[in-house]
């Protein structure tokens, strides 16, 4: 395995939320003790439902938000303090792509100017070199230089996402955080962008953190996948193996809830209850109120992410059992 480019050790982040105008403020634990490691040139997929903390994790990893506790190391060094020159230099090496390309682009600027902007900001190259680089980037995302003169409104959704990708690649980053990059696109366009992203990753040796609720897309692009539930990682393992043999009851339900052509819904696990509310996190295992196999212990004791086999970690009392506990204690 390659050396890690990004190391995240037990980061936590909570926000305070007030219910009503005079209500007491309560702490919402968006991310709670998340540790991740992404080897150079590989992709880590992060899946989970809304409110699971996957986007917050992405923002902390990128340094857009400081963690309350824990640490993010990039290329062996801790993240620089926000808005310092060192931070800016580090930030040029990491970029982000969001779900909504129209929201990420300025409607009143031709797209070529927007791709050029990071080069201006980071002072990379002479003006003619920057123009060349913009053309090169447009080609890299399979658009013609003519597209560069257009405004975002005159491009299709897939083309806009390519522009966002081209802009993200302008500073030759090593690391890309993609937050639901293809969720707003139609299936056929989604496939174009996923293929493009894999090609660019192979060509440029990019390291990706790929955040999505779509298990299919995540499996397609990831080496390792982490499943989040209410701010914690409940299972992590190799992408193919994780989806073929999910161990955590939540992962099992997610995989089973993902509809597949050619399979009838017989045998699907339908979870009871509502999606979790981060402001009212259940005691013990956060998943236990919806878990079909929950035992008494699940309501009182929070399970710890422990190794199951060589390439899998699961946080579940049912999977790891009491013996895992004693092993940890020993």
């Amino acid at each position: 395995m390659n050396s890690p480019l990004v190391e995240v050790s037990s980061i936590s982040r909570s926000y305070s939320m007030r219910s009503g105008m005079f209500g007491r403020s309560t702490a919402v634990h968006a991310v709670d003790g998340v540790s991740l490691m992404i080897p150079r040139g590989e992709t880590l997929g992060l899946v989970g439902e809304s409110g699971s903390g996957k986007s917050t994790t992405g923002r902390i990893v990128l340094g857009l938000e400081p963690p309350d506790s824990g640490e993010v190391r990039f290329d062996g060094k801790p993240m620089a303090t926000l808005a310092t020159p060192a931070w800016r230099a580090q930030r040029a090496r990491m970029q982000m792509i969001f779900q909504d390309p129209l929201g990420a682009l300025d409607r009143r600027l031709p797209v070529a100017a927007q791709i050029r902007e990071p080069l201006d900001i980071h002072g990379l190259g002479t003006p003619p070199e920057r123009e060349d680089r913009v053309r090169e980037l447009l080609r890299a995302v399979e658009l013609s230089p003519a597209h560069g003169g257009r405004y975002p409104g005159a491009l299709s959704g897939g083309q806009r996402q390519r522009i966002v990708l081209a802009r993200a690649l302008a500073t030759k980053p090593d690391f890309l955080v993609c937050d639901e990059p293809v969720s707003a696109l139609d299936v056929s366009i989604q496939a174009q962008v996923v293929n493009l992203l894999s090609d660019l990753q192979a060509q440029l040796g990019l390291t990706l953190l790929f955040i999505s609720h779509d298990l299919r897309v995540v499996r397609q692009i990831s080496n390792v996948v982490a499943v989040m539930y209410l701010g914690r990682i409940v299972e992590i393992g190799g992408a193919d193996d994780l989806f073929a043999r999910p161990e955590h009851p939540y992962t099992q339900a997610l995989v089973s809830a993902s509809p597949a052509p050619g399979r009838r819904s017989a045998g699907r696990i339908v979870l009871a209850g509502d999606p979790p509310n981060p402001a009212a996190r259940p005691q013990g295992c956060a998943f236990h109120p919806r878990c079909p196999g929950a035992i008494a212990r699940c309501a009182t004791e929070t399970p710890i992410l422990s190794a199951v086999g060589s390439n899998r970690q699961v946080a579940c009392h049912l999977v790891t059992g009491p013996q895992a506990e004693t092993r940890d204690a020993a």
Partner: protein
Amino acid sequence: MPLVSIRDLSVAFNGVPVLRGVALSLQKGEALGLVGESGSGKSVTWLAALGLLPRHAKISGSVLLDGREILAAPASELDHVRGGRVAMIFQDPASALNPVLSIRKQLCEALALHRDLTGDAVKAEARRLLDLVGIPDAARRLSAYPHEFSGGQVQRIMIAMALAGNPDLLIADEPTTALDATIQAQILELLSSIRRETGMAMVLISHDLGVVAENCDRVAVMYAGRIVEEAPAHQLFADPVHPYAQGLIGALPPLDGPRRRLTAIPGTVPDPASMPDGCAFAPRCELAAEPCRLATPTLAPIADDRSVACIRAEASRRALLGIAAE
């Protein structure tokens, strides 16, 4: 006699055609899936059929409900159809409910309009419906307001309102697209259990092929305002004939088995204001030949229960079998 029979339905907005001759029929109790990308006309078909499009839309064709023409029917007749015989639920349930009225008010309004119920009978029925769609503690929750419910629960309430008129047909337009995966599974499960109990027919409009495959008997694939292929669900996904249907299925990343490069369909959907000549899919189609650009192919039967609108259907089938034989 089919429950609904649509013939040659066309819709144009400001002279731009968005629906170009759709033919569909639906039997009583049947579940029909409608798939296609944004702008393909999946929703417009049903909005047009039910007279829900704005006035400036130009609509032509025929929509028969139990043999009676409802296209351009007088408002008094449509009021009986909409919400009564045919109910509709949408992707964004929260915006379909009135935020300042309690759930009881809104459910009772639907019941008073479509059922001959009065007084306590209305309230009892409202409670029964809320129970039916799986809202816990229905009696107390009736007096709650939409914002007090989660997204999945609001969609359940929308389903309860749709059921208020005892419809023969439910049009579900992307009913689970805004919901999380585990909640989507709950709503789909609820819809199929209601259909088992009431024998209600359903049209499920979705961009998600998996959702349609699992929940429908028959599927129609739409592209650029026309139906390009229609087949029983299991056949369509096992053996798609139209190159666009093949492309859609090939573009879906597999959840198990070996990973393969996705077969992306090149290019984008044509602009309705400047449609290519002949087959609308030809510019993106690998199998397109000269004749494809001459005339728009019509939906023609290729088996008892299958039809496809493609003059290269035979070639496309052979190509698919060739790939499968490798």
